[in-house]
């Protein structure tokens, strides 16, 4: 019973399938339990994680952002063009990073302003910005990938530090930061409250408009960071990068246990969700499953996780998750 309570409290439900799949893969493929393989997995999920961190916070606060994928692309393109315009030298790297983050945050703030001041539903607004930003990325890059960025810059997020891939370190550090923000700061508290009942929080005298701008700004900033990591690891800025990233981020967040309607969120759950998705993808590769089936499998995984963690499932059929994790169905 205590294990159940602990599992529920710390959102460890996904550990079970993760262990099962990892064990299965170690047996099924000789290439799984391999340092290089783990490095690959880490690098692949790092970018998803960075975006999903912001998405976790945003969804907990009752919002959603479909424009993060385009954000990633536009950030990369702008930073690449910055170097194309002839920037060089030690200072340029710092400037480039600030530029990238700045673009990301700016996009987020614009989303936040439209959503809070013009009262446009988040889904619709970010759907619009998603397409707009993609268009801007295509224009700014003339529709072609941009290369030729100095190594000094690329090495910021590419390679290893103390034996661990830099993207993974970045993702882990940001995870700790965002988890801290969500659980230990007034901003995080307000976010949870707004996601739970925005009207009440407004009546309590809290600045809802300000909060929303900050929330979306943070998501945008993290997407910008993801754009920087992607661009440096690929050494290329692609205008079409980041496609589907927003949906993967949302999937991973929901799989991890954060409720889509807001009010409750878990960073650890999101990390597990990303890990599970990464393992499944890795497994499909190692087992030489034909590429055309990958999308199907990933889709089924997401559907499966979401159904299992849904209230109706846990309520009517004492679902697998309830048995393992003792997750509480929400009260009426």
């Amino acid at each position, binding site marked *: 019973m205590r294990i159940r309570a602990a599992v529920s409290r710390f959102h460890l439900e996904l550990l079970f399938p993760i262990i099962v799949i990892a064990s299965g893969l170690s047996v099924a493929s000789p290439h799984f339990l391999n340092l290089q393989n783990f490095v690959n997995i880490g690098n692949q999920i790092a970018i998803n994680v960075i975006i999903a961190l912001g998405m976790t916070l945003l969804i907990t606060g009752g919002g959603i952002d479909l424009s993060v994928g385009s954000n990633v692309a536009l950030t990369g393109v702008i930073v690449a063009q910055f170097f194309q315009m002839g920037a060089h030298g030690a200072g340029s790297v710092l400037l480039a990073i600030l530029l990238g983050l700045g673009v990301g945050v700016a996009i987020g703030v614009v989303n936040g302003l439209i959503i809070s001041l013009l009262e446009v539903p988040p889904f619709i607004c970010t759907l619009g910005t998603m397409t707009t930003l993609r268009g801007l990325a295509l224009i700014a890059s003339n529709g072609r990938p941009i290369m030729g960025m100095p190594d000094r810059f690329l090495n910021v997020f590419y390679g290893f530090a103390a034996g661990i891939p830099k993207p993974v370190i970045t993702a882990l550090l940001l995870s700790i930061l965002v988890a801290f923000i969500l659980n230990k700061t007034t901003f995080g*508290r307000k976010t949870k409250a707004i996601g739970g009942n925005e009207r009440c929080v407004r009546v*309590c005298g809290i600045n809802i408009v300000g909060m929303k701008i900050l929330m979306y700004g943070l998501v945008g900033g993290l997407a910008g960071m993801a754009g920087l990591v992607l661009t440096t690891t690929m050494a290329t800025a692609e205008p079409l990068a980041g496609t589907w990233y927003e949906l993967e981020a949302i999937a991973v967040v929901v799989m991890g246990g954060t409720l889509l309607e807001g009010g409750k969120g878990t960073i650890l759950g999101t990390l597990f969700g990303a890990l599970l998705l990464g393992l499944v993808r890795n497994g499909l590769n190692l087992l030489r499953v034909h590429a055309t089936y990958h999308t199907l499998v990933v889709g089924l995984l997401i559907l499966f996780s979401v159904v299992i963690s849904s209230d109706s499932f846990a309520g009517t059929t004492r679902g697998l998750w309830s048995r393992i994790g003792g997750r509480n169905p929400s009260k009426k």
Partner: protein
Amino acid sequence: MPDTLLRMEKICKSFGGILALKDVDFHLRKGEVHGLVGENGAGKSTLMKILCGIIQAERGKIFLEDREIHIANPHAAQGHGIAMIPQELLLVRELTVMQNLFLGRELRAQRVFLNKKKMREMTEEILANLDSPHIHPNALVGTLPKANQQIVAIARRLLQKGRIFIMDEPTAALTQKETETLFRIIRKLSAAGCSTVYISHRLEEVLEICDRFTVLRDGSVVKDFKNSAEVDTQALICLMVGSRIEEEFPHSTAQRGREVLRVDHLAFRNYQGALVRDISFSIHESEVVGITGLVGVGKSELGQTLMGLRKRIAGSFFIDARPVTIRSPMDALRNRIGYVSEDRREEGLVLALESQYNMTLSSLPQISTASVLSSSRERKLVTKFMDRLSMKEQYLDMEAQQLSGGNQQKVVILRQIISDARIILLDEPTKGIDVGAKSEVSRIIGELSQGKKAILILSSEPREVLGISDIIYVLTLTGMQGPFKRGDLNYSQLMAIEFGQTRKN
């Protein structure tokens, strides 16, 4: 009785152990206009909801033309010709008059196509019968003035072969002239053999249009009698109010301090869009001011305007004699005004959040350093005030939705105390709370005022207001009466003012 159309006999209904209707008999004759009169909570809506099939009686029978019937749902009620016209009218604003009249029962030509010509003819005929040929069948209902919308609602029911019309506060949004038109239509309905149940707090109107009355009090029928020259509003009020034992409400005996809040000639719009104006009152330290009035008169809206949740159309606020602008709840919080909303679940609490966190929502700066929360400071702050409200510690870590209504209300009140509000507004503070918790909340309110706080209560429960307040104002349709000192006003006098009988200065 030969001409009795409807008989409801010995109707009983309770909600969660509280008896709402006790052996109620209701007789409706053919072609009569029957006034159903009583205070808030007397049972009028419950009785009518049973008649309309919205809820079921626990005991009792209903006879239509001497045949017993069972009204299982609104559809069945409609089948018997029982037509409810609620205050919201239930029309689709985006559709035309004709479309509304025939909604769900459109006339067809050859099965598939609409027979617009026939529908239009019938629409015009019915409207003419109701003395309203000026209402155009193709007009969008949403564009019509309220009075005409009401006529359309009546017409729709007529078309549904309605024989018994139940009208709930029909004149609430009508001018004098429109009311006269409505009365003409009601008389026409009577002449055609339809009966009308007229529910209203406007006693002068009730006396004018009704042939008979049934007065309800606390779920029972007090009297059922014919209208005549001897019956006047005083008589009705006496019957509605009766002689009752004044309930003992605990209240503070602290001396009131200096003026904290003054409201001057405030004007705002109520839910129906009508302008409420010339609201002036003041609240002092250690004082409980109660504003009461009938439901719908604008009390909640007054509270909302004070909190910046509703647009202030005119008037000004003064706190400590300094003018202040309150345009949003943020301004209100800054001025240390706390608010306990009428709707706990929608506005008062974040249900999925733990009670403790609900309590500290307005006080985040006090429990954090540089935005980082301190759980020890938070716990200390909360437990400091918990005992005064006898809130148990184990509730703190429970989600707000798991608490009872009374405890939920305590959480909201605690939030105001913890944020050190000087002025606390409570809108219907004991609504939806069981009797035991009610008196506890009342006691808490009394105690709050002893702590130098200025309390404003907005309540439709006159006994509550009389019991707790030091100063009472009465909000009526004609304006605000008061201030009355506690003890200067008794229950009957209060009722008389609320129902617009006398002006007390």
